[in-house]
């Protein structure tokens, strides 16, 4: 997976985040029983960067977060947190080989987060987090919330409670400092006036800000925010951007955030990582990711357009649809990244493709058909007497993919139902999302639909619940992707 990205990054100078990462996630895999939530994921979070983790719903973003912050123990993989500059590869290897959890020294410290319990990750490795559904201490005041966050330094100052009971002067001083720090953060999130109100009493936006302030009170080097802009209005979301910039600039805290709000992501992120089905599909700066066809395909493939309520992606989506129409006119695809396919593999697959071409050669000629692994499926220039089926009734096929399939001469369910593994591989590669056809079981769905039966998804389509899909009888013309 992600070979394109790697190739591109390796061909250019290494990106900033690969040179001085604060956090390296390597080959992270998380399985829940049979479900693979995150599969062999690797990425770096640059020191002082704002890094965004995006992806469609269920892509595994929060799972990655929970693995990084110790709430899940990953099935496989290594998560290394570094204090101090440089890659510190030697130290990381040394700790990995030993059965230590971390190594601290004056030059720099390394922490293997997957070996540490959750509280130690916050306490020692200095990784703080917030939650998708806000988790404040509702019955405690805003000030108390920020004091709880300073538990560990205060605990030491109170000589682990014993000194505190007898009122050692050191503790009084430490508590005063803690309140000062809380005051500072309350000012930064504009909650000074509500300091003595219970957290549950605050409005939603204020609760989000308070949760960030609380996380910052643990003095983190890496702040992980799980959808900080969820439920905020545009003004609040703008203020959030400013707060995050402020945190990064004034406190030097690196930020890793999960976000659906592309406005936040594109505006402030230095580095964006895109996940889909637990696999990294793109990695780079905001511009790079925005124009990555895999990202667009991932967002396109989402069955429910309500999940892509993101103007940038919608815009990109329209572009792709137009492009597909051009393709249909030109009768052959272009703008397909050639680097996706290792040449050796393609040539190895060639004989298979040739042999199979004999029984059902496609009426559609694709010039570089042989560059893709597997075999081009049989396609017809005309939909046939019954007219085309609405391919979008298959879960995973959106309007743009339907267009592309039509350009291949694929019009009806029975055509897809006839695909075997080589065809599936070929189409997957041609549509630039290998593996998704198997995962979404297009062929199985097509078999059901070809027999005139319904799938759970097609029923939803027919009820009009899926705006990206057309109901039973498609429009005659091939105009645009929007119904």
């Amino acid at each position, binding site marked *: 997976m992600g070979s394109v990205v790697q190739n591109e990054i390796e061909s250019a100078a290494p990106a900033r985040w690969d040179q001085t990462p604060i956090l390296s996630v390597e080959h992270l895999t998380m399985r829940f029983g049979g479900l693979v939530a995150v599969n062999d994921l690797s990425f770096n979070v640059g020191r002082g960067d704002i890094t965004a983790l995006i992806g469609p719903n269920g892509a595994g973003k929060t799972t990655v977060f929970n693995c990084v912050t110790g709430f899940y123990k990953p099935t496989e993989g290594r998560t290394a947190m570094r204090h101090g500059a440089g890659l510190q590869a030697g130290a990381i290897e040394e700790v990995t080989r030993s059965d230590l959890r971390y190594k601290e020294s004056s030059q720099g410290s390394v922490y293997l987060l997957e070996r540490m319990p959750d509280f130690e990750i916050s306490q020692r490795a200095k990784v703080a987090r917030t939650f998708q559904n806000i988790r404040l201490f509702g019955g405690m005041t805003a000030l108390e919330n920020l004091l709880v966050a300073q538990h560990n330094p205060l605990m030491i100052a*109170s000589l682990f409670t014993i000194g*505190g009971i007898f009122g050692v002067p050191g503790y009084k001083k430490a508590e005063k400092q803690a309140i000062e720090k809380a005051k500072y953060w309350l000012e930064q999130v504009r909650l000074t006036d509500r300091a*003595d109100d*219970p957290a549950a009493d605050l409005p939603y936006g204020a609760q989000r800000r308070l949760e960030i302030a609380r996380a910052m009170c643990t003095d983190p080097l890496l702040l992980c925010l799980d959808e900080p802009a969820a439920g905020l209005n545009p003004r609040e979301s703008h203020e959030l951007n400013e707060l995050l910039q402020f945190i990064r600039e004034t406190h030097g805290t690196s930020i890793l955030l999960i976000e659906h709000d592309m406005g936040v992501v594109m505006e402030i992120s230095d580095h964006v990582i895109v996940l889909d089905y637990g696999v990294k599909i793109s990695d780079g700066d905001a511009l790079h990711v925005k124009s990555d066809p895999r990202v667009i395909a991932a967002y396109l493939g989402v069955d429910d357009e309500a999940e892509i309520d993101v103007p940038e992606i919608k815009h990109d989506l329209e572009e792709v649809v137009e492009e597909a129409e051009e393709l249909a006119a030109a009768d052959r695809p272009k703008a397909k990244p050639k680097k996706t396919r290792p040449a050796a593999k393609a040539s190895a697959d060639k004989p298979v493709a040739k042999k199979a071409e004999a029984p059902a050669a496609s009426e559609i000629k694709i010039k570089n058909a042989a560059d893709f692994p597997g075999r081009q499926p049989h396609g017809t220039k005309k939909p046939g007497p019954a007219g085309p089926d609405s391919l979008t009734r298959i879960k995973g096929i959106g309007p743009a993919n339907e267009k592309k399939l039509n350009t291949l001469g694929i019009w009806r369910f029975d055509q897809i139902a006839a695909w075997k593994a080589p065809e599936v591989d070929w189409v997957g590669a041609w549509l630039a999302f290998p593996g998704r056809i198997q995962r979404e079981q297009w062929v199985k769905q097509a078999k059901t639909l070809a027999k005139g039966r319904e799938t759970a998804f097609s029923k939803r389509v027919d009820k009009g619940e899926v705006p990206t899909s057309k109901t039973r009888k498609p429009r005659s013309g091939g105009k645009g992707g929007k119904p």
Partner: protein
Amino acid sequence: MATRSVPLSSARDDDRLANSLRDAAIAALMVFALGFFFLGVRTDIAPGGLALTFRWGLLFSAVAIVFAGRLLLNLFVFKTSTPVTSRLADTFSGAGSSFAGLGKWLARALLIFAIVLPFFFTYFFPSKDRQYIDLAILIMTYIMLGWGLNIVVGLAGLLDLGYVAFYAVGAYSFALLAQNFGFGFWMALPLAGLLAAFWGVILGFPVLRLRGDYLAIVTLAFGEIIRVVLLNWYEFTNGPDGISGIPRPTLFGLEFSRGEGGFADFFGIPYDSIHRFIYLYYIIFVLAIITNLVTIRLRKLPVGRAWEALREDEIACRSLGINTTNTKLTAFSIGAMFGGFAGSFFATRQGFISPESFTFLESAIILAIVVLGGLGSQIGVVIASVVMIGGIEMLRNLGFLQHVFGDGFDPTQYRMLIFGLAMVLIMVWRPRGLITTREPTAVLKEKKRIGADMVAQGEGH
């Protein structure tokens, strides 16, 4: 509008009356059906077998009372828009806020009264002073136990149904140390506390991962295990026979006994058995005050805030670097330690202990005190203890009821019934306990009390 509303409201009134009558009739019918065999028919032993005597008068007076009572309740409380009890309800539901302001003064007044209490009783009730001071000692013991359990249940939010186990550990620790090694009360007291704290940690470990109902069940089981072990380990604990001859506490070596070298002799005052009771009272008073002061202090320390944060949200605690394992264990062990202190006081006061004193009912009473007083509230525990323990004892003196129900009526047998009813009523009116507001532990500008609806109750509630 006015013309239309009049017939409407009168129609509603007719409706109300009819409904109320019907409801009262149904209730009366039910009383008749149920009461027929219990009240209406009486079997007497007669020559040659049993004879039935019918008591129609009694049955129909019961039916009439229920009918009239139900009808009145329907008309004035249940089926009216302006129930006569609404003002009562307002007074009660507003009580939290007025208590809050009163709390401080109430606490001070109670403290002063508690300090002079033995002299108050010896001066004003010289004939009954021993009985009242003994009752005060009992109430004070439960106050201390309530404060100890409040740490676990009220602050850390961990429902503990087996708190009496630590009370038992404290009592048996002292009794066994005294019996086997000749320890005095003051020597054994800290050891008993430590041992109870140790058992608190022992209980804490298995329940660390448990939540909700499961936590409650395991703590309940733990309490029973301790009691059953005490009951069956005959060689060590003397089983159901218990341990007697537990030494009385001494005042710097002075015993409260008649004759040479005793307290009275040393100070040159005439011997009176009440001295020992006054001394015992002050011991438990000081122990309870220490428990209270330590708890108040702990609340404002990081560990106390961590307990409350744990009650609010455990996952958030972990994300902030709080070791929840240690935090829970400290709550269990500190709570247990105070239970242990109270236990060794209990042993020295009674002079005899047996597993019978440490049944589940004790745990339930202590928990009821904490819940009734309001989780996390110190003054609430005091009020609840006085009401519950003092109330139960006071119900023994219901002699006036004999005038109502005749000489054969034994009021002490009904005290638990009355007590249960009172509990139900209080919980209906104030479901979150008497004192429900939470006081913040740190203030920036203005201290605002936090309403009970904001505060989480923790696990197992």
